[in-house]
């Protein structure tokens, strides 16, 4: 239950509180809209993210399998030697995308291979075909991995923003706005009460003044009567 704010019940306070209530209500409505829109985006994104991850995990398993077969038929040293000096490098470029005022990164990459069809950093003489398979399928998988990274980060960032927005909406809806309303009602009642008090006091004073006037008048009359009789 919201508590009334500890303020002086004055007309000025009433005006400022009413202004605050108006702002809070408008803010609440806007944030609620933002929350709904974010939620829509987010659910779509999370679903996509889940699908992509499943796919990547499945293919990753395949890649690891090929690698373990390759390492079974080749000696450890040869394997390591073969992979040690990559032919290509990967340059990552990060751009920004704005989703509902959340900055999310967008990744794009370029490879620096001289010959994109030949990514194998080793001669074929000493290595097994399994290794070729493993490397090429991993290389095929790479754009997906990158996509996964972007999606996952996006999802996490939107989730954080959504949580924040949800909290704000709730705080406004269940704390701020009821509190303001309660305080405004309290001040209004207090002011009305003062008004009534004032009214009665004035009526009472008027009554007293009237009575006094009547009394004075009667005394004057009596004096005049006495003089007249005397």
């Amino acid at each position, binding site marked *: 239950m919201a508590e009334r704010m500890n303020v002086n019940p004055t007309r000025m306070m009433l005006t400022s509180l009413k202004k605050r209530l108006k702002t809070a209500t408008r803010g609440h409505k806007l944030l609620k809209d933002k929350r709904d829109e974010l939620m829509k985006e*987010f659910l779509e994104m999370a679903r996509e993210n*889940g699908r992509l991850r499943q796919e990547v995990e499945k293919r990753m398993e395949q890649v690891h399998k090929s*690698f373990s077969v390759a390492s079974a038929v080749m000696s450890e040293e040869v394997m390591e030697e073969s992979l040690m000096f990559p032919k*290509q490098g990967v340059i990552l470029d990060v751009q920004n995308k704005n989703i509902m005022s959340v900055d999310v990164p967008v990744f794009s990459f370029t490879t620096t291979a001289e010959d994109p069809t030949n990514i194998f950093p080793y001669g074929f003489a000493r290595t097994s075909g399994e290794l070729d398979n493993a490397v090429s399928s991993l290389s095929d998988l790479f754009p997906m991995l*990158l996509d996964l990274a972007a999606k996952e980060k996006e999802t996490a960032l939107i989730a954080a923003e959504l949580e924040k927005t949800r909290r704000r909406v709730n705080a406004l809806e269940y704390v701020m706005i009821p509190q303001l309303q309660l305080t405004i009602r309290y001040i209004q009642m207090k002011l009305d009460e003062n008004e009534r008090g004032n009214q009665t006091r004035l009526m009472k004073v008027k009554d007293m003044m009237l009575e006094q006037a009547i009394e004075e008048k009667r005394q004057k009359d009596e004096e005049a009567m006495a003089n007249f009789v005397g």
Partner: protein
Amino acid sequence: MYKIGVIGDRDSVLGFKALGLEVFPVHNEEEAKHTLRELADNEYAIIYIVEDLAVALEKEIDKYKDSRLPAIIPIPGKDGASGRGMDSVKKSVERAVGADILFGGDN
């Protein structure tokens, strides 16, 4: 200019080396933690980390969860997917919605 790092046990990450990514084989959690911190501070935009290490370093990873970069992404190691990567997606959903409404919520 940003870089991509891969952290994990030697067998799981060796393949990425051939792609031209920067690979950091580690032997234990302590080492992984150290490496992770180093990479996060050094212009690495994406850090792939093997799942079982990701579980062990969850606290460390959560620190970077709300910042734009780096994206720390768990990937299955040579022993296959443990479901931990999926958990991080589930956790995001839980965080945003309050309950896991997308992926069955079986745990």
